[in-house]
């Protein structure tokens, strides 16, 4: 919770670099705490903390098991690395006097996301959701391009609609059960399952989450927001905000309502499955036709979220494991890709494909990171992407869903095409400027080191995924209520 305290401090500090140092400190502390937390959860099982000493269900309870410890670690890792990355990138893209505000918003956003993950209280989820969303709107609006304002506004409208739906859902549940604690809800809900109110609450929540996690066709806010936001923000939000929304969906479906209600009574898989398939397919197709590298990746993100939701819709241990492991893996690869693009923007001032000609030679390390991230996105063996694909396809085949497995592979090939588009421009087209033009030389180390640190993580967990797969498997079993440790 350190970040929450750090935010106003960062906002008040006049000097950008000091604000940055505070941000890095806070993010680093969060990462340290998250690592410790995950270690303890894996050993001891559930950890509870009663906020202010009020015992639940009256007080707010923080409750951490393998599922959210995992999500917390994702947010903290990406937060810490993008915070390191922010220094130079933000100096380049923002006016000086706005920088402290930027860091304040950044920390707030991270706090909100961590809060959603850590809390065991549904209304608290909503509060943190608003914290993270409002600060995210602000962050996006700071983009250099004036279109950042409209895209932030678009996100604001759609995000608020989503949040409203969520709060209505929560309100209805509270009305029926008189509690806001997740565990309590899970106990009391079965008694009132037969009323019409609970299915309505469920529907409101589903739509709200789908908006937040940008499930097709509720993804319209995402491409613009990603494209026009400052590079650091894109890297951070793309790899955390939607992931946390997926976590909320998992938590509500499986822990609060219970898999039996969500999938057998409400048949939510009948909605999620087709939507996610359409998302994967159509968004990959749209990505192929983009001319702006950031927008291309944004559409690819919507498709990738489709993979996660697809895994959830299987409602089997294998499917959920695939979805949860892809949460982590996709966060890793998208962060690398967006950070590499941030480095390109730092030097070239644009991420239009046109402007990226010949960069393979001019910025070998940056584009090398992009290629590594791209390979991971495609799902080439020895990268994390492969592990996700492996689980997803195994899950589909286990259920006997042939066409789904085939579709996943076809869309992997579409990923080859859109990643290749960027690579071909960067490596096989001539640099347009003159040779001694120093406008597009290698990015500074302050950008490269965080990017390559993530590349390393990408490969490490691709080669040896036993740790990630164990955690994801545990999380999946907890959610399905099978042999929770």
């Amino acid at each position, binding site marked *: 919770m350190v970040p929450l305290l750090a935010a106003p401090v960062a906002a008040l500090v006049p000097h950008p670099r000091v604000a940055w140092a505070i941000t890095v400190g806070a993010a680093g502390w969060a990462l340290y705490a998250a690592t410790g937390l995950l270690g303890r959860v894996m050993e001891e099982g559930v950890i509870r903390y009663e906020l202010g000493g009020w015992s639940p269900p009256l007080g707010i309870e923080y409750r951490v098991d393998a599922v959210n410890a995992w999500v917390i670690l994702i947010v903290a890792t990406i937060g810490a690395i993008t915070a390191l990355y922010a220094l130079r990138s933000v100096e380049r893209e923002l006016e000086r006097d706005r920088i402290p505000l930027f860091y304040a918003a950044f920390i707030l956003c991270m706090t909100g996301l961590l809060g959603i993950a850590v809390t065991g209280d549904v209304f608290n989820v909503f509060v943190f959701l608003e914290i993270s969303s409002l600060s995210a709107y602000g962050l996006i609006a700071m983009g250099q391009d004036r279109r950042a304002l409209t895209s932030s506004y678009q996100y604001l409208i759609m995000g608020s609609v989503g949040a409203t739906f969520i709060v209505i859902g929560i309100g209805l549940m509270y009305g029926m059960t008189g509690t806001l604690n997740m565990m309590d809800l899970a106990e009391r809900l079965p008694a009132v399952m037969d009323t019409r109110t609970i299915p309505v609450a469920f529907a409101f929540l589903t739509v709200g989450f789908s908006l937040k996690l940008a499930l097709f066709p509720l993804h319209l806010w995402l491409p613009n927001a990603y494209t026009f936001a400052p590079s650091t923000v894109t890297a951070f939000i793309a790899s955390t905000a939607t992931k946390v929304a997926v976590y909320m969906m998992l938590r509500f479906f499986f822990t609060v309502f219970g898999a039996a209600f969500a999938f057998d009574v409400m048949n939510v898989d009948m909605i999620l499955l087709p939507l996610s398939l359409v998302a994967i397919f159509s968004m990959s197709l749209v990505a192929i036709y983009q001319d702006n590298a950031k927008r291309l990746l944004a559409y690819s993100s919507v498709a990738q979220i489709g993979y996660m939701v697809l895994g959830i819709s299987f409602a089997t241990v294998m499917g959920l494991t695939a979805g949860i492991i892809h949460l982590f893996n996709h966060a890793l690869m998208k962060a690398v890709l967006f950070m590499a693009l941030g480095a390109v923007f730092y030097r070239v001032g644009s991420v239009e494909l046109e402007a990226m000609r010949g960069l393979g030679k001019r910025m070998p390390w940056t584009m090398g990171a992009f290629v590594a991230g791209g390979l991971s996105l495609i799902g080439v063996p020895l990268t994390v992407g492969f592990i996700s694909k492996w689980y997803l396809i195994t899950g589909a085949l286990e259920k006997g869903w042939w066409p789904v497995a085939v579709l996943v592979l076809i869309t992997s*090939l579409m990923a080859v095409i859109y990643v290749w588009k960027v690579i071909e421009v960067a490596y096989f087209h001539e640099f347009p400027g003159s040779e001694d033009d120093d406008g597009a030389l290698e990015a500074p180390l302050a950008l490269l080191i965080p990017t390559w640190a993530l590349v390393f993580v990408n490969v490490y967990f691709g080669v040896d995924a036993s740790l990630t797969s164990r955690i994801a498997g545990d999380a999946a079993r907890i959610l399905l209520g099978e042999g929770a440790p």
Partner: protein
Amino acid sequence: MSPENLMIAALLTPLVGGLLIVLTGSWPNLRESVTLVTAGITLALVANLVPGVLEGGRPELTLIEMLPGLELRFRLEPLGMIYAGVAALLWPVNSLYSIGYMRGNNEKKQTRFYLCFALAIFSALGIAFAGNLITLFVFYEVLTFSTYPLVTHKGNEDAMKAGRVYLGILVTTSIGLLLLAIVWTSVLAGTLEFTPGGILAGNVQPGMAGLLLMLFMFGIGKAALMPVHRWLPAAMVAPTPVSALLHAVAVVKAGVFSVVKIVVYVFGIDFLASLDTTQWLLWISGFTVLSASIVALRILIQQGNLKKMLAYSTVSQLSYIILAAALFSSMGATGGSLHIVAHAFGKITLFFAAGALYTAAHKTEIFQLRGVGWRMPWTMGAFAVGALSMIGLPPAGGFISKWYMMIGAFQAEQMVAFGVLILSTLLNAAYFAPILYMAFFQSEEPLRAAYADGHDPWHVDWDHGEAPWPIVAALTTTAALTVLLFFFPDVPLELARAVGESGLTAGLGD
């Protein structure tokens, strides 16, 4: 060194060599010495593995566990030994040839060229040593990506287009079909280990087995079974050493190696022979053998590009091996494994000769070969040996493998396969013999006169002699190997027999 350590050392040597090649990139002489020394060490290491495998040793080691049940594992058995041996034996020869070729033609970016070559050999050895399907798949993909820069080496529009076809077909088939087949196998059998006698018997219904086999066979695009063969002719835009080693040996042999491996160690010969949903493989490979030969013959008649003709000849010869595997008999598997060696020696000789013609005289088209036999006696002599091996005549190695394949066809009572073998022999003769006739018994004078006025898009040098010495030395060596294989086939034959036996029933050959 223990066999396990030898395997690791053999894998690491090309990697370390690649690193040294990059470091010594500014000094060409040093860089080429590094390549040659690395190739020599790799060969010595691989050669040291042979006796152990002949005695029945199956060295294995687990590198890393990616997921529970999903490991990177190596396990050397006779078939892998054959493939690794061929790749390691031909790499030094090819390096020698490359030096002559790349310098003779003043090619650019030679450091990248030698680096990618080392990486390709590394992945070829990885494929050969693979102990399970997933390891095979990983190195298969590495091979695809490491050879892409070699195919597009020239960097012009044509090369880029061919590169796109190359990558497009190979990646599409491997991710779209092969990966699916592998995951499916893992779901069905619960394991991906290569096991003598197969892992699928009893785990899959006949109809599904047919479908699965189809996924595997077309998923392995490198085996160039029609209709996924188009990448091979396209890849001929690469410099000739690449076509020689990669598209006559490492890449395409990785394909047929995987085919034989999967037939023998994943399905099991007995299991496949007991099914009637898998016979289509025989037909489609037979069809590929014949139609690719006919295309090659058409190129001869049109007097087109020599390398393209050789490429189609490769497509046809690769399907011999698939055909032999599709006989689902132990003799067939033996013949197929042996043909991996025989075809490698013969075809690399032919490509070397084609590259020698280009280096010495910029001759790339078949009609330009009139009278060339007397100007380049060594080159065309080696070409003749290679051609004999392709046709399957003594005293070339191709005869022995064809012999075993024919016995296999008899054994399996597959007269169709027998007919295909006979017919294709005639076709092979029909497109190789005229070239030899043109080269040795026709005069170049009329051609020379026709192009004397300077309208020559190929810039042929008509007063050429023999190619530079490294090239001649290399192609003489491979031609000699082709002949030696006929007279002393013991080692590869022993290994090939062991392959045939281990496919029959678990525990017999292993």
